[in-house]
C-alpha cells in the first residue's frame, strides 16, 4: 500500500500545479454551498469519470470544505501519478489482501475531524454520461469502522462545454443527514438518488 507523504514543499507544488491546471483548462468550476460540521471529519463520495474529478474536488475542498485532503485511489493510478501522494493520495489494491489495510487506513483518517477522505466507490473510471451507478462494497467497511466520526457528503460532478471552448465543471454537493448505511445497496440507492437529481438539474441548463 502507498501511504500519503508529508512534505510541505511538494504539497505546495501539487496544490499550485492543480490550481494552475484548473485555471488554465476550465472556464468555471461551480459548486453549491453546504453546511460543514467542524467537529467531524468528511467522507466525500463522488462519481469517477476522469483524473479531473480528483483535481476538481481538491479545489472544492480548498474553497469550501477546508479539510486536510485525502483520496483513495487504485494502486495503478498511484504509481502512474506519484505526485498525488503529497496531496493526500493513498492506494488500494482490489486484488490483494492489502485492501483491508487501505480500508482501515481510510477509517482511521476519519477519526480526525480535520481530515477529509475522498472515495470513488465505483472502483474504476466510467463515462461521465452514465445514468446508473454501481458501487463496489469496500466502502461500507470504511463507514462501519469509522462509525459516527464523520460527516457524509455526496458529490456528483458533470462536465459541459455549451458555448465555451473550455469546459465548465458543475459539482452538486449534498450533506447526508444519516450516514448509518448497513449495506452497499442502501448507500448506492441514496447516492443514486442524489446523482439522478443532480443530473436532472444539469439537463435543465440550456444556452
Amino acid at each position, binding site marked *: 500500500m502507498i501511504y500519503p507523504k508529508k512534505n510541505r514543499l511538494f504539497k505546495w507544488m501539487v496544490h499550485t500545479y492543480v490550481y494552475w491546471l484548473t485555471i488554465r483548462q476550465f472556464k468555471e468550476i461551480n459548486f453549491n454551498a453546504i453546511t460543514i460540521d467542524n467537529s467531524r471529519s468528511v467522507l466525500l463520495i463522488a462519481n469517477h469519470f476522469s483524473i479531473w474529478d480528483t483535481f476538481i474536488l481538491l479545489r472544492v475542498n480548498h474553497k469550501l470544505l477546508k479539510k486536510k485532503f485525502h483520496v483513495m485511489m487504485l494502486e495503478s493510478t498511484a504509481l502512474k501519478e506519484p505526485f498525488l501522494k503529497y496531496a493526500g493520495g493513498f492506494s488500494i489494491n482490489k486484488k490483494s489482501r492489502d485492501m483491508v489495510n487501505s480500508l482501515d487506513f481510510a477509517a482511521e483518517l476519519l477519526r480526525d475531524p480535520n481530515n477529509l477522505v475522498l472515495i470513488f466507490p465505483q472502483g474504476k473510471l466510467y*463515462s461521465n454520461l452514465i445514468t446508473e451507478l454501481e458501487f463496489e462494497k469496500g466502502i461500507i467497511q470504511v463507514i462501519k469502522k469509522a462509525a459516527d466520526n464523520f460527516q457524509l457528503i455526496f458529490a456528483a460532478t458533470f462536465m459541459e462545454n455549451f458555448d465555451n471552448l473550455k469546459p465548465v465543471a458543475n459539482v452538486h454537493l449534498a450533506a447526508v443527514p444519516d450516514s448509518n448505511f448497513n449495506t452497499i445497496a442502501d448507500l448506492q440507492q441514496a447516492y443514486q438518488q442524489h446523482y439522478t437529481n443532480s443530473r436532472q438539474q444539469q439537463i435543465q441548463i440550456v444556452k
Partner: protein
Amino acid sequence: MVVFPQGQLISNHTTEIVVEKGIERLIKNIKGPCQIVYSCALIDYFESLKPSVFFHLYDCGIAGEVSFNELTARINDFHQQALKDQINVAH
C-alpha cells in the same frame, strides 16, 4: 450539410432530443436523393486530461421516405442506445 435540429445548446447529458419543426420543412424541400445521418457526439475524459469526443453515427433513412415523427423517434431511440454504448466504449 450539417443541421442541429435541437435549435439551441442542450446539455451533453440529456437523454431526450427535441427535434424542432424546421427540419421537417427542410427535408420536404430536398429534390434529389439525400441520406439523413444522425451524429451523436459524446464527450468524455477517462484517463486523459484532454477530452475525447466519440461520434455515434446512425443512418436515419432517405429524405422523403421517412416522416418527421418517425425521424424524431429514430433519433431518440438511437441516442438512448448511444448513451448505453458509451458505457462500454473503448478508451
